[in-house]
C-alpha cells in the first residue's frame, strides 16, 4: 500500500507546476503507469480523493493509462509485448526475454487546467 506515498508525490509535483499558472483550477491529472510498476489503479483512485482534499487539485479527475510490458527479444530482434506477467518469454519464438523496454513507468504525463483570463 504505497499508493498514498505515490499520490502525495503527484500532488506535490502538480502544486509546483501550478506556480506558473496562478489561480488555475486543475480539472484532470493524467498518468502513465507501467504494468510492472507495482501500482494498483483502484488504490490510486481511492488515495487520490483523500490526498487532494483541501488542495488546488480537489475535485479533479485522475486518469490512468496502463502501459503494457514490452521486452526486447534478441532472437526476433524486436520489441515484443508480454501479455502475461507469469512468463517472461517471447510470444513469437518462446525464448526467455531479459531486456525490459517498457513497463515500469510511473509518470505524470500532463495536467488539464482552467486558467483565469488575465484582465487587460
Amino acid at each position, binding site marked *: 500500500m504505497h499508493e498514498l506515498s*505515490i499520490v502525495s508525490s503527484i500532488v506535490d509535483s502538480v502544486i509546483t507546476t501550478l506556480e506558473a499558472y496562478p489561480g488555475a483550477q486543475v480539472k484532470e491529472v493524467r*498518468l502513465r503507469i507501467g504494468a510492472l510498476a*507495482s501500482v494498483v489503479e483502484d488504490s490510486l483512485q481511492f488515495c487520490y480523493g483523500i490526498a487532494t482534499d483541501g488542495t488546488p487539485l480537489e475535485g479533479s479527475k485522475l486518469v490512468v493509462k496502463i502501459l503494457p510490458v514490452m521486452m526486447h527479444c534478441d532472437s526476433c530482434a524486436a520489441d515484443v509485448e508480454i501479455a502475461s*506477467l507469469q512468463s*517472461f518469454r517471447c510470444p513469437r519464438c518462446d525464448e*526467455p526475454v531479459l531486456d525490459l523496454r517498457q513497463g*515500469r513507468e510511473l509518470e505524470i504525463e500532463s*495536467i*488539464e487546467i*482552467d486558467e483565469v483570463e488575465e484582465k487587460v
Partner: protein
Amino acid sequence: MTTRIVELRQGILKKNDELARVLRGRYEAAGVLVLNLVSSPGTGKTAFLERTLRDLRTGGANVAALVGDLETDNDARRLAASGAPVRQINTHGICHLEAEMVAKHLDGWELADLDYLFIENVGNLVCPSSYDLGEKIRVALLSVTEGEDKPLKYPTLFNSADAAIITKIDIAEPCGFDRATALKNINEIRPGVRIFETSAKTGAGMGDWLAYLAEQRVHS
C-alpha cells in the same frame, strides 16, 4: 476561463530516483558493493544476513548493514551481534525504504572503509520494488515454507531482482518443498537470474553466495 493542457512528462518518484542516482555515485566512488534485500515477512532475511555478515567478517571483509522495519529495533540488535556496524531505520508504518531514509542513516559512516553494505528492506514483496535505493544488486529472497508460486504471484519484484536466494533449505523436505517448480517459476519471471539455495542454520549454499559477492565487488 481557458482550458490548457500542461505537459509534464515527469517521473512521479523523481525525487527518490534522483537521490538514488546520487547515492549510487557515492557507493561507486567509495568502492563499496551495496545490496538491497527484499522478501516477505518471515522469509529469514535477518537470519540470512546475520550469517552473511559473520562469514564475510571471518573472511576479513569490512561490512555494514542498514535494516528497515516498521517499528522495532530487534533486527538491528540481532545483526549487531555479528560485530558489524548496523543501523536501524524505523519507517513508522511506511511499507518500504526510500532513498532519503537510507541517505540519512549513512551519516557519519565512512563508506570508503567498507567492502559491502547490505540494506535489509521492510518485509514486503510489493512496495519496495518501486523504490531505487542506489543499490548495485537487488536480492529477492524466498523461503521453502512460502510456496513455489511466490515468484508468479509477485512478478514485479522478482522481475527486478539481480539475484534470488532460497532460504531455509535445511527444512525443505518436511515442508514438501518442490525445488524444481520453484526454480522453474523464478526462471519464468527472471530468466537466467543467479539463484542460491541456502540455509543460514547449516551454512549450506553460503560458499557460492560469498563467492558471488566477491565476484560482484571486483566488477563494481
